[in-house]
């Protein structure tokens, strides 16, 4: 950082690069519902060694968006996929938590599908964002990316002793309301979880936040409280969402909530400015600081199950 005083422009650029590097160096450790952050380093290697498996979450790729601050959202998605491919330990699967496209157009879905083939992972699980279901209630999305377990598009699967649930909360939205799960999906969720022992770790994911993060901007889900009531008996629950293009976290008992960054563009912090939408003032230099993918490792510890999380970009 010696050039800070010599060349202000270059110094700022260098500073931002350093910030990016620092941003890449955070490891999130969740143990018994409490989140711990530590810089990447020896501790990371140790955490990775203990991991029984890992998976990667990406979100809000918004293929079709081409305005400030990101004129090339395909390129930034591609960078995220390259980071995933560079991981020493191959993730078990990839999770895309919605808003694959900007306008649900067939050519946008085509581009996204083509790009995702560059990821060297066995399978990618998707849930739709509200941008993926415009005009057809998600018919095209589900035809291309659906898991086809339930008519409504929601699904569950097991990986390494962890139960994963993919929920849909961007359809049948009510005027004046937030995201919505709906009665049918709630009945299914209750039944899906009914046979599980309370010590089964759960990972639940959906596009819109499943907690009232900032309802004034639509950042929440109307009937999430009912869904959460089914999760509370479990000892380790992680809820992963997208939608708001920034990392927000909350711990509520044994449930830890996370929202992911976008691979396309950042949005303002809750309540900062007149409304949500792209943070246009972000310069090209700084954009990558705001974009991201996350790598979640499932660690089977000596006495407690924990999920560790590492921000990759």
């Amino acid at each position: 950082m010696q050039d800070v005083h010599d060349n202000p422009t270059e110094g700022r650029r260098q500073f931002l690069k350093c910030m990016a590097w620092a941003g890449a160096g955070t490891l999130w450790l969740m143990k018994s519902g409490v989140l711990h952050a530590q810089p990447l380093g020896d501790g990371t290697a140790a955490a990775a060694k203990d991991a029984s498996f890992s998976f990667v979450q990406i979100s809000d790729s918004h293929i079709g968006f081409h305005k400030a601050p990101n004129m090339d959202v395909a390129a930034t998605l591609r960078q995220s996929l390259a980071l995933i491919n560079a991981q020493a330990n191959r993730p078990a699967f990839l999770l895309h938590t919605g808003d694959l496209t900007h306008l649900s157009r067939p050519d946008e879905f085509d581009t996204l599908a083509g790009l995702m083939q560059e990821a060297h992972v066995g399978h990618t699980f998707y849930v739709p964002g509200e941008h993926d279901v415009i005009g057809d209630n998600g018919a095209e999305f589900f035809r291309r990316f659906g898991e086809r377990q339930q008519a409504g598009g929601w699904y569950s699967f097991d990986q390494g002793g962890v139960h994963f649930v993919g929920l849909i909360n961007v359809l049948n939205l009510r005027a004046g309301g937030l995201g919505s799960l709906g009665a049918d999906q709630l009945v299914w969720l209750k039944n899906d979880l009914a046979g599980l022992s309370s010590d089964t770790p759960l990972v639940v994911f959906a596009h819109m936040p499943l907690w009232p993060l900032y309802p004034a901007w639509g950042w929440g889900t109307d009937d999430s409280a009912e869904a959460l009531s089914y999760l509370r008996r479990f000892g380790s629950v992680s809820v992963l969402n997208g939608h708001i293009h920034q990392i927000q976290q909350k711990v509520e008992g044994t449930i830890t909530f996370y929202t992911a960054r976008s691979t396309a563009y950042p949005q303002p912090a809750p309540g900062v400015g007149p409304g949500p939408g792209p943070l246009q003032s972000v310069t090209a230099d700084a954009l990558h600081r705001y974009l991201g993918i996350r790598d979640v490792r499932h660690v089977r510890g000596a006495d407690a199950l924990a999920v560790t999380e590492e921000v990759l970009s």
Partner: protein
Amino acid sequence: MTVAATLRLGCVLMMVALCGVDRSAVAADASSAEGAKVFQIDIRNFAFAPKTITVPAGARVVWTNRDEEPHVVTSAGAQFTSSKALDTSDSYGVTFSKQGTYTYYCSIHPMMVGTIIVQ
């Protein structure tokens, strides 16, 4: 395609262009081709402005998206046809011939709600 067919297609496309969303760019006190008064509603910062508007029967209401985000104008009770996804600067117009109160929202950002009162 024959020359005649090409010409016919050209005419159809021109008519579509004339009848489509382009005309919606006119100001609030302008009149549509049918002579109906046109009322503009801006979609800005994830809100409809004005949020509530009172118009005479037969008026044409035109929404224009000023946000970087797409929006979809949707009638709460399916009282009028919904728009397609409106990208930045796209417009959508509806003529309201019957008196009544029409509530609408953005189907992808449902906290965005507006009302049209037709007198």
